[in-house]
């Protein structure tokens, strides 16, 4: 995956984190700008729900603002931030189980111009048909991801989409690296079976796109 300017900025954000930890409001604001998209996407892939992802993202950054002064090592900021996000994801999952509510996004609004996928698209310069297919494929893969257990899903998202190292995932989840790898193995194995069931392969995807 090619490094974007955002990725480079995130990697070189040590001084920013140090300043934010000392109470620099401007630095804290910049940190939010840098990490918001990552935390939102992590939460979105975890829940497949925009509202819950927004909720978790906001709570995560409020918590970051409150507790940043207590962060011991700047180098551990990434795993520390994901720890907060994972904890809020788990909390929301418990709440969701208790209330059994569902998001309006769970409803299929149908195809064509009425579809919310059009509203969510930001790549307006792309071919609309191709863009819609990408969006549909994303949702399909997302639904496959949702069939994994919470533990496996957390690890797969962190490794495959958030690009965390196994060590960082272990730190974020407070488990051993071997456990992370084991969950990853069973997660990928589970995904393979799910994709096979839905007849999604590299070839079919290539044909669709």
């Amino acid at each position: 995956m090619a490094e974007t300017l955002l990725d480079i900025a995130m990697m070189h954000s040590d001084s920013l984190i140090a300043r934010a930890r000392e109470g620099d409001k401007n630095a804290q604001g910049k940190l939010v700008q840098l990490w918001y998209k990552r935390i939102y996407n992590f939460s979105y892939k975890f829940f497949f729900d925009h509202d819950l992802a927004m909720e978790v993202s906001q709570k995560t950054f409020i918590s970051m603002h409150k507790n940043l002064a207590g962060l011991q090592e700047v180098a551990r900021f990434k795993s520390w931030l994901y720890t907060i996000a994972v904890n809020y994801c788990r909390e929301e999952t418990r709440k969701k189980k208790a209330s059994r509510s569902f998001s309006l996004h769970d409803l299929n609004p149908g195809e064509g111009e009425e579809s919310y996928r059009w509203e969510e698209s930001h790549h307006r310069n792309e071919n609309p048909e191709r863009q819609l297919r990408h969006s549909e494929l994303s949702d399909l893969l997302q639904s496959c991801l949702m069939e994994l257990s919470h533990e496996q899903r957390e690890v797969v998202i962190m490794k495959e989409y958030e690009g965390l190292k196994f060590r960082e995932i272990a730190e974020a989840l407070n488990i051993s690296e071997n456990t992370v790898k084991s969950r990853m193995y069973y997660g990928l194995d589970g995904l393979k079976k799910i994709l096979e069931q839905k007849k999604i392969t590299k070839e079919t995807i290539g044909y669709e796109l």
Partner: protein
Amino acid sequence: MNYKPDESTLIAFLYGELNEKETKKLEAYFQQHPEELAKLRGMDEVREVMSHAQDKEVIAPPVFVDETGIKPLWQSSYLRVSMGMAASILFLLVAGKLLGPEINYSNGELRISFGKKAEQPMQPAGLTEEKVNELISSSLAKNNESLASTRTEDQKKLMQTLVDFNSKKMNELTKTASQASQEQVRSFVSNLQEQNLKLMKDYFQLSTADQKKYMESLLVDFSSYLQEQRKQDLQYVQTRVNSLEKNNNQFKQETEQILTSLISNPGKKKNNY
């Protein structure tokens, strides 16, 4: 060979995080168990397929820092409570001062009163209303009699004193007037004239000195005003000259630029379509 890699080793191999020794060991294992390698390749394919799940675009909301935790001293609850108590006590003190409350306990009777205690008239025992009236009327009659006698005596004395005093004064005045000679009157008049003359002289002298001072200051002020005016006029003229010079330079530069432009683009045609 009983070697069987665990899941973590296989995943480390899949992500290329296995050391060389372990990798060789695993490759040897795969040669004997190609189904395991196929399984790993299947997982790699899963990774590739799953990578098509796109990120959602989201705009980070603006950050608002809640500063309500730091309250100024006057908004702290402790200060408010203590101020409230102090205000209540002050109110009670002021009310007490104004109303003057008095609490008494005597003969098994608790009495709370406000304001000054009403003085009760002492009534001597054994006196009836008639007796009192009689005493008052007799006392008043006596008093009136004594007052009348005193007044007539005083009037007489006063009249006598006035008559004595006036006649004495008149006598003295007549005596003094008759004793004053013609020379004394003349000297008094001349003295009076001299004094008046001196006064007038002083007045004119003082007046002339003040007027002189005033005129001098007026002349000085006028000359300084003229100098200032001249200075300002000169400055204005200087500014105008500078401005003209500047405009001239600018005009020169513009002309040079136009000329340069004409010289450097000789073949350029102007299109209006």
